[in-house]
Structure formats: C-alpha cells, structure tokens
C-alpha cells in the first residue's frame, strides 16, 4: 500500500489539475498555471538545495535565460512554441553549464556568493544590452502559435500544455531522486569526504545537479514568457532567486512534494492575504520567521512528523 501511495497521489493530482482545466474560470486557471510554473522552478531548484545541500542565489539567471531564449527565438528565428521552449531550455542549460563549471568549486557561503555574482552578471547584461534584450522594458509580444496543429492561444488551451510539462517535471525529478545518481547526491550532501573516498567525483555530480536544476528553471522561464507574453529583466534579479528557496522552505526542504505544496501555499496565501491587506510581503516574512524558528521541516515535514507520531500512538494503543 505504502509503495503505491506516491503514484496514487500523483494520479489524483493530475486528475484534479485536468478538472480545474475543464471547469474552473479564467482567474483560477491563471493562478493554477502560476503555481505549476513556480513548482517546476522549485522542484528543479530543490534537487540542488534539498538533495545536494547547495544554496544558490543565481538561479533567477537561468529562469531569465529560458525566458529570453524563448522570446528571442520567437521574435527572430521561428515562432513555433515547442522549438521556442527547446531554445529557452537549451540556453538555460548552456548558461548553467558555464556558470556551474566555476561555481561547484566551492560550497557553503562561497558557493552562495559565487552564484550571486554570476547571477547579477547575467542581470546586468540583460539590463544593459538594450539592443538585444530591450533593457528595462524587456521583450514584449510573444505570441502562442498552434502546437502540432492544436491551438494554444487561449489560456484555457495553453493550460494543458503547462499541465503536461508540470507532470513531466514531477515524473523526471522523482525518477532522478530515486535513481542511483540521486542517491549519490544525497550521499554527498550527507558527508562529502566519505563520498569522495568512495571514488565519487564530487564536482561532476554537483555540476550535474546544477545543470539539471538550471534546465528546469529555464523550462519554467520559457513557459512563463509564453504565459505573460513578455520577458521581464527583473526575473534575473537575485531577489527572484530567493523565490524557489522560500517555496521549498515553506513546503519542506527535505521532502519531494515540499516544493509543490510550498508553491500552492505561496500563491494561495498571497491571493487570500492580498484580499484583506496590502502588506502580503510582511506576512510572508512573518510566516518565514515562524517556519525557521519552529517548523523547519516546512508544511510537509511537519505533517509527516505529526502523522508518524500519531501512527505510533495508534499502534501502541492497539497493542496494549
């Protein structure tokens, strides 16, 4: 029973998403798409943070690489959406390969500072190369052409493309986490000396995790560019890099579903709180404070702990 639980949860999630796509109104559709994009970004990111133990402040650069890669490809080369996404992800992979090559030489605070430096380099390039990137205006007018004969121009149609990529991301990340490769990553984060004595090339594994997380950031970026029909220079700013960290933390750093649950909570809470006050960010700060001070497992980690305690109590009672 326990073995099939993740698959059942995954199936239920997809059914729920399809139902939302068929019956919900435009506003809910848009919010759900934002949740899914944030989840894709955070799921990839958490492979690096939760699994490998590296805190990056530069992943907004790869999100922006996806977004601008998609936009430039659409505007100058070919308006096909699938090729555009491929171009966006491709650019993000190249960028994360180059940047990652330098960054994985360090860990801890030096890694965080190095990714911050490279991320801000990308931001400054986007900001200043007006002729290519549009500077502070960004790139506008990204349309949604038919994909393999199906129209995706309307939000209600585009939604299913996002669901497809979301499901693909969940599946791939789950496979990676439970693969030998994913276990090595966890081993490195646990004790990197021991891992290197076991003959593992730590840098290559870290670089691989870096590039994979960069690729998913790029996927989220290119899908985001199509959703909003523009590319925003501030998507490369370091403050945007904090978003997947916050989401993973809210949902639970060391769980697989943490980033997804965190994204849902993040977007839904924002909508609810913004109904009542203008100070959503203030509440976000307070929520973060509470999580870091008291519930470091995040929503899923705390829920797991609670369930485990409850299950133990239940077993003890039925045994006596």
């Amino acid at each position, binding site marked *: 029973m326990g073995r099939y639980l993740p698959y059942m949860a995954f199936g239920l999630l997809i059914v729920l998403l399809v139902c939302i796509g068929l019956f919900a109104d435009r506003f809910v559709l848009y919010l759900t798409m934002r949740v899914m994009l944030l989840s894709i970004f955070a799921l990839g990111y958490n492979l690096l943070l939760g699994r490998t133990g590296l805190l990056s402040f530069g992943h907004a650069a790869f999100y922006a690489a996806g977004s601008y890669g998609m936009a430039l490809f659409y505007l100058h080369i070919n308006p096909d959406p699938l090729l555009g996404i491929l171009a966006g992800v491709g650019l993000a992979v190249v960028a994360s390969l180059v940047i990652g090559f330098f960054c994985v030489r360090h860990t801890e605070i030096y890694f965080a500072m190095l990714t911050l430096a490279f991320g801000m380099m990308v931001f400054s390039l986007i900001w200043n190369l007006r002729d290519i990137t549009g500077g502070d205006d960004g790139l506008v007018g990204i349309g949604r052409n038919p994909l393999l004969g199906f129209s995706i121009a309307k939000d209600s149609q585009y939604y299913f493309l996002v669901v497809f990529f979301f499901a693909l991301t969940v599946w791939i990340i789950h496979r990676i986490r439970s693969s030998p490769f994913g276990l090595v990553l966890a081993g490195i984060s646990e004790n990197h000396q021991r891992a290197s004595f076991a003959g593992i090339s730590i840098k290559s594994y870290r670089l691989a995790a870096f590039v994979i997380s960069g690729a998913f950031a790029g996927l989220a970026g290119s899908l985001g560019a199509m959703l909003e029909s523009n590319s925003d220079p501030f998507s490369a700013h370091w403050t945007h890099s904090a978003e997947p960290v916050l989401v993973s933390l809210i949902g639970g750093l060391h769980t697989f579903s943490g980033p997804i649950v965190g994204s849902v909570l993040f977007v839904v809470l924002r909508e609810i709180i913004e109904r009542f006050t203008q*100070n959503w960010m203030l509440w976000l700060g307070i929520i973060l404070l509470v999580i870091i001070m008291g519930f470091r497992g995040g929503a899923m980690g705390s829920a797991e702990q609670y369930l485990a305690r409850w299950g133990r109590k239940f077993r003890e009672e039925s045994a006596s």
Partner: protein
Amino acid sequence: MLESLIHVCLAGLSKGMFIWLVASGLTLIFGVLGVLNFAHGSFYMLGAYFCYTLLSMFSDNFWLGLALGPLCVCAVGFVVERFFLRYVYHLHLPYQLLLTFAFVIIFDNLVKILWGGGSIGSPTVTGMAGSVSIAGRLFPTYSLFIMAVGPLVALGLWLMLEKTWAGRIIRAASSDREMASALGVRVPALYTGVFVFGTWLGAMGGGLAVPYVGLLTPGMGEGIIIDAFVVAVIGGLGSLKGAFLGALIIGLLSSFGTRFIPSFDMFLIFILMAGVLLWRPQGFFGEAS
C-alpha cells in the same frame, strides 16, 4: 582631461568610503558570529529613516539626529539577535541566510507602512550644503566629509579591536569560540553585543546617507547590501582591513566604469567579485583555510 580624472577619482573615493561605512558592520558581524546578515541593509535603511524622522519632527540639528537615530536601530538589532538569530547559529547556512532575509522583507514592509511607499526627499546639512572648488570644478562638501569619516571609522575600529580589553575578548571569541567560553567569556552576551555594535555601524551609514543619497526609498537597503557583500567578499569575508581596501577598489572601479564604459559598470564589479572568489576565495586579507 586631468581635472576630469581627478573628479572621477574623488567621486570613486567618496562612494567607496560610503560603502565601507555599511560593509564594516557586516564584516565585523560575519567575522565574529559567522553569519552573513542580509538584514544589514535593512539596518542601514532604518538608520536613514529614523534620522530623517528625528530631523523633521524634533529639531533641525542633523548631528543630534545622527547621534540618536542609530541608537534606536540598535534596539531593533538587539531584538533580532537575542530572540531570533541566537537560535539558528547551530543550523545549516540556508536557515541562517533565510532568517535574515525574512527580516529584510519584514523591515521593507514596515517602512512602507510607517513612512509610505514613495521616496522622500532628504534635507541638506547646514554648513555642508555647498561645494568647494577642486582642480577647477565644484565638488560637494558633504562628499569630502564622508571621505574623512570613512578612515576615522576604520581607525576607531582598529583601535578598539587591537588596543582595548573588549577588543581582545572579541578577537578571542572570533578565533576560538569554545576556548574563550572555557576561559570565562560569556560568548552569547558577547555575540549580542557585537551584533548590536555592527547594527549601529550599519545604521550610522544610513544616517550619514540621508544627505548623501538625496532620496529615501523603502528598497534602499537591498541595493547597498549587495555592494557591501561584494566589498566584504573581495576583501575576504570577516576581514576589516580587506573590507576597507575592497570598498576603495569597488568605489573607484564603479566610478571609472560609469565614466568610461557606462553600460558595463555593474558587470565589471560582479566579474571582479567572481574572479576573487575563484582565484583567492579568502579574499585579499582573509586567512587561508
């Protein structure tokens, strides 16, 4: 041409000294507590807003505001360290950084609620409002004043750390926490003290920024904290000497960059930061690990 170069240098030096005022507190806190404090930019912002408020509400005397404003921010710093930061020292790096980041978000919004989201024009300082003529061009007097304050703060910090009893204890605790604690130093109290002192330095930077930057905005801490990070990294995390030199380098580089290659001034700074991290991660004056 020469006059222009002199002025680029002067602007760079004053900018560098200005960043140093903020980076000194950040570096001191990292050197002793081992925490990279994102909220340091918020203390800078709070310092600026408190000084501004004291200035506009009670008196026209800038110096009184500068003396009292940062003290109010110290109370905020005390609360942050004593009731929050103290409990995450033993945790992994992400939790520490995110805790200070949570405070950045909270303080930015509190400032927005209390002072409004728009920018506020700042007053000028009596006696330093004008400019002096240097090499045939006008240079703001207040910038010269900042250039004088920077080295004075550096000298003061050096004297305090090297020549006083308190400084010796701080150095002891930062080089070996357990040993200092075994010899009877109350390390937790010392940490609180150093954090509050670092906060005061950051808030002083903010107070001095009131006439310097011209406008106060709720996001002003986020810009300066990245500059301060760059400076702290270039000089070697935790090294005050390095931070001073790093601030001079960054000030001059950004001033020359803005003058000669304006599109890439920001890029230059971050490429220098990445280069130092790769080539000499301990910075110019940090100890090799």
